[in-house]
């Protein structure tokens, strides 16, 4: 026996004046009773066990992958069919295909030296559109760099995609970023930042702000499985849970981080398995199934806002294209592997099969749409090429909210310099 007599009264260790909230989270401190032989540790709520047994990370049969459609676009379980109206599903299809067309043309334009850099979204269009469609249009989006379909779904015009890639006078970012670093305040899409995973804790902060403002909004934060290795991801997940933020972490697990395959990126069961470790409600979905992505995001959104709680969605997919125009992925993966995903399991073809099956689409419309979407992209492209670059004065603005005297002097000095030596600069290409 222990040293306590049966008459000793239990000592309460809950915080005085802070009673347990109804429907609260399990980690609030339990009532402390020194009589019971139960664990009393503040750090974990668990039972004792007297057999030495290690927990094996389960990577052979990991967290299952939720899907609604099979690879031929057939609904597997009718009760999971979101029953979206034709117009909406057509919008999914057109957003994904328009993005695909734009990607082809802009990738090519980099090869021809017309733009400096580009990143395609091939194979991941479903992750963008399915999730974007499940959000409110005013929900804040923090992306990594491969989520252009979210903007496409939010009707960001081709003209502005191109303007950013060309750094021309119409670019909302005033030509200051590398291509594909889009940003749009009007569409609640935070400007893309180059360093990886920095958006994760930032998104959490924004979600916390939304909670404090009772905004009934969710923040969605996209990142790849490679970026999830960064320390910022760890901090972001942990803070989202401890601060109880209405955020959806959306991981695009596309198999590669430049050339680094997932087998070298991590040894656990992907990103979804990390969620419970942080106290995040988590799910793994088939990212190439736009309805699965839609359903998961929709439900996550509903609960994140209602319960002020973070969610983690890991969308399994495949990066069909190269990492960027600076990469040639044939150096590290086989053409057969890429072809499999392109031909056998592509979000666009799966949705097309669904549409054809429903009688909402046919070959005629497909042909017409291909022609029309290509024409639209080419027109925007030609326009973007012809436009001027932003005014050189814009070199100096927006460093601070107010331009400091020193920068104003430099701006004036440049103006004088150009007056005298302007002929040596390509000023005709720039707005006056």
């Amino acid at each position, binding site marked *: 026996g222990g040293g306590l007599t049966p008459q000793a009264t239990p000592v309460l260790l809950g915080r005085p004046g802070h009673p347990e909230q109804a429907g609260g989270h399990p980690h609030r401190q339990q009532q402390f009773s020194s009589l019971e032989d139960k664990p009393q540790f503040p750090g974990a709520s668990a039972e004792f066990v007297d057999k030495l047994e290690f927990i094996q990370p389960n990577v052979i049969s990991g967290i299952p992958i939720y899907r609604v459609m099979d690879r031929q676009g057939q609904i597997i379980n009718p009760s999971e069919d979101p029953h979206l109206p034709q117009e909406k599903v057509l919008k999914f299809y057109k957003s994904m295909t328009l993005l695909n067309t734009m990607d082809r043309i802009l990738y090519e334009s980099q090869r021809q030296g017309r733009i400096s850099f580009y990143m395609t979204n091939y194979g991941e269009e479903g992750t963008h559109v399915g999730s974007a469609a499940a959000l409110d249009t005013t929900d804040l989006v923090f992306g990594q760099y491969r989520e252009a379909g979210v903007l496409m779904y939010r009707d960001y015009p081709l003209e502005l995609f191109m303007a950013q890639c060309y750094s021309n006078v119409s670019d909302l970012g005033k030509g200051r970023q590398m291509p594909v670093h889009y940003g749009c305040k009007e569409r609640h899409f935070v400007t893309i930042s180059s360093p990886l995973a920095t958006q994760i804790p930032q998104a959490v902060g924004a979600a916390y702000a939304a909670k404090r403002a009772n905004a009934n909004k969710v923040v969605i934060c996209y990142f790849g499985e490679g970026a999830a*290795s960064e320390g910022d991801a760890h901090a972001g997940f942990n803070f989202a849970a401890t601060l109880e933020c209405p955020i959806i972490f959306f991981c695009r697990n596309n198999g590669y981080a430049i050339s*680094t395959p997932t087998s070298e990126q991590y040894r656990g069961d992907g990103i979804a398995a990390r969620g419970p470790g942080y106290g995040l409600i988590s799910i793994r979905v088939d990212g190439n199934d736009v309805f699965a992505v839609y359903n998961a995001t929709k439900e996550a959104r509903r609960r994140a806002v209602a319960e002020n709680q973070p969610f983690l969605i890991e969308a399994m997919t495949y990066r069909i294209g190269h990492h960027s125009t600076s990469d040639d992925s044939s150096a590290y993966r086989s053409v057969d592997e890429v072809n499999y995903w392109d031909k056998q399991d592509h979000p666009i073809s799966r949705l097309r099969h669904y549409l054809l099956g429903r009688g909402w689409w046919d070959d005629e419309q497909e042909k017409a749409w291909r022609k029309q979407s290509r024409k639209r992209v080419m027109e925007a492209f030609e326009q973007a090429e012809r436009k001027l670059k932003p005014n050189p004065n814009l070199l100096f603005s927006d460093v601070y909210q107010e331009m400091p005297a020193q920068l104003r002097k430099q701006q004036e000095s440049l103006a004088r310099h150009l007056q005298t030596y302007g002929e040596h600069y390509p000023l005709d290409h720039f707005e006056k």
Partner: protein
Amino acid sequence: MAAVSGLVRRPLRQVTVRDAINQGMDEELERDEKVFLLGEEVAQYDGAYKVSRGLWKKYGDKRIIDTPISEMGFAGIAVGAAMAGLRPICEFMTFNFSMQAIDQVINSAAKTYYMSGGLQPVPIVFRGPNGASAGVAAQHSQCFAAWYGHCPGLKVVSPWSSEDAKGLIKSAIRDNNPVVVLENELMYGVPFEFPAEAQSKDFLIPIGKAKIERQGTHITVVSHSRPVGHCIEAATVLSKEGIECEVINMRTIRPMDIETIEASVMKTNHLITVEGGWPQFGVGAEICARIMEGISEKLVLEYSQAVINIVYLNTYWIRRLKARGGQMTTFNLSCIQFPGCSRCSCHWC
């Protein structure tokens, strides 16, 4: 790629900066099995900028290691390996991303030998491209020479030519102190003539010694990394107008070879610093401060200075100074005029 030792004086050959760094690392990996390279994409991919081309094929997984994406993570791992007796080369895809790891570089790598009372050396090399590239925007373009150059415990080098690159990376790897090697992406593909001695496996360039790339008598021009090339181009143009620039390639940021710069300024009485970093608290600012403090015993200085921070040193600025009778511009050109100056033939003042 292989350097061949021999008795016969070999002719000069063209080697790119990339290949020079590759050679330097290859030779050091071969020489000492404790040396290894880690970073993102360094192994089978041959490096994001192909600087480690062929090394994984030659040395395998144990010596050339691909890491998951976490600069803080792999820098910390590298520091730990160095503390345990290995000699890691830790590659940052660019030094812009080293900011995610900077605590490991400074608080751990730089300060540990001192703080452990000399018990715990950290023989590590951090390397990667630094400064501006072509149109890669603000987050890929910062120069970190001033940031790392500020910290005791670190050595910081900034090669310009292929010879610099090979000699300095080899010295860095052999140095028992933590060394930051600031390369430049735009220089990787540039070929230079590789003198015979540079082809030796024991070719080292001492850390802490600048090189006078071009002798001159009228003005001292000090620079590091890619801008050194621009200074030499500008010097060539000015030479036709009778202005002879002495171009100094710093090679090392810390410990700075101020003696070479001082000796040159004593001769020319004029100084311009040229760098890719921002002016405030920069490398040029430090040079000017030291010149002020040092030479002020020998000469009384009239002005203070600003520094040039345009990547392309162009001769317009120098002509402009001349045209304005040597007055300081409010833009960013520096010229220190010493009252003891004997009004050299460049007619600057």
